[in-house]
């Protein structure tokens, strides 16, 4: 596990140092939230649905940008070649990239959730407590899928356009589950009531983290 730790620390160190992309990501996330709230009048009864939807749209955007950026860092000076030459298992590279993407997404989401609370007058209560695991499960699944697909997209012509086309449809089950679970949480449902959706998200996460782990080798090698 040493390799994973080394890689993750390096990515976090780099990100803290050049901070600009994380801050921009947080800002972008919050901005998307604002746009959606302005577009759909939140004062009519369905504000919980709107909040949930807006949160997840922001999450997807932030996630995709975050993954692209994480991979760009490795392409500068072909650092990825240095990693491939080292004894580090490709699986560790995948795990470190996934963890880094997840952490950045969560930071961006924290900003969005705070804005959400302001716009929709939520309290720091159980509703929020139930929202957080939903967002985390979604973020994990998204990071898994997007780390792998971004590695593919970054080596393809028009890759940054291709990435959303590849990621979003695959992410749909977790997206549906996540939005519905979030809306339920904001409406005051208990974890038991959200269980159906949460189970789907957990299954999604397990499936795609494992699949990504197994398939990453085929995707990361140069040709």
């Amino acid at each position, binding site marked *: 596990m040493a390799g994973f730790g*080394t890689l993750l620390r390096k990515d976090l160190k*780099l990100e803290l140092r*050049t901070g600009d992309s994380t801050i921009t990501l947080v800002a972008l996330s919050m901005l998307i939230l604002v746009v959606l709230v302005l577009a759909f009048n939140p004062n009519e009864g369905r504000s919980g649905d709107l909040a949930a939807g807006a949160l997840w749209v922001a999450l997807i955007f932030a996630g995709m940008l975050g993954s692209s950026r994480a991979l760009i860092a490795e392409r500068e*000076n*072909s650092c990825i070649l240095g990693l491939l030459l080292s004894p580090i298992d490709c699986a560790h590279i995948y795990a470190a990239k996934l963890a880094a993407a997840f952490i950045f997404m969560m930071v961006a989401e924290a900003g969005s959730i705070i804005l959400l609370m302001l716009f929709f007058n939520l309290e720091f209560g159980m509703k929020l407590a139930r929202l957080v695991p939903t967002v985390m499960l979604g973020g994990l699944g998204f990071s898994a899928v997007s780390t792998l697909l971004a590695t593919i997209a970054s080596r393809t012509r028009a890759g940054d356009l291709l990435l959303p086309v590849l990621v979003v449809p695959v992410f749909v089950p977790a997206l549906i589950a996540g939005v519905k679970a979030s809306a339920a949480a904001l409406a005051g449902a208990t974890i038991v009531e959200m269980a159906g959706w949460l189970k789907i998200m957990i299954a999604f996460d397990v499936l795609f983290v494992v699949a990504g782990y197994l398939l990453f080798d085929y995707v990361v090698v140069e040709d």
Partner: protein
Amino acid sequence: MNQPILEARALAKLFGVTPVFSGVELTVGPGEGVLIIGRNGAGKSTLMKTLSGLVAPTSGKSLVCGRESRHLKTSDRRVGVLAHQSMLYPNLTARENLEFYGELYALPSPPESASHWLERMDLAAAAEKRVRTFSRGMEQRLAIARALLPEPDLLLLDEPFAALDRDGVALVTGLIKDAIARRRAVLITAHAPLDLGGLRFTMFELAHGRLAAFDDETRHERLRSLSAG
């Protein structure tokens, strides 16, 4: 140890249907050095990457200590590669870069190894500066340090003297001599034959996709024809 450290057998690489090189046969044993010269675009860098296992050959094999270089990760053999790209993180300092690679290679004490190499490559003064601020020559020296850090059995250096001033050249020549003395295998590429401070390197030329022996006779002929016409 009699086994050659690097062995290429009928190595060929095609991009699509265009051959970059083919039929490459090469053997480099411990304490031996090889120099491959060739013009820009001749395929030297691709050859280096294929030998190191970073790139898969279209056909043929590249073996490091008997194992295919494509599967090097699972062996305990190390290959030190200097490519055109430095493989250094621009926003980390010189020391941080070396310590990072030291940890990746599970060296006993990455901070010590990093300090040692920073001294050796005359980069101690710039140790805490980000690589982004380095000159081309400094980056090259740090990249060489990165390649040598894990004490590799095989050194593949693609144009190691590029961007180096006279002191840098002397430094790197000394390193190569040292590697030879330690019974490592060294393969370097260059545009033209080099003076390696008295070291006898077997010379090859990569031209038109073929690797051919390049000895003094060929070189004199080449010079004669150049001065004639």
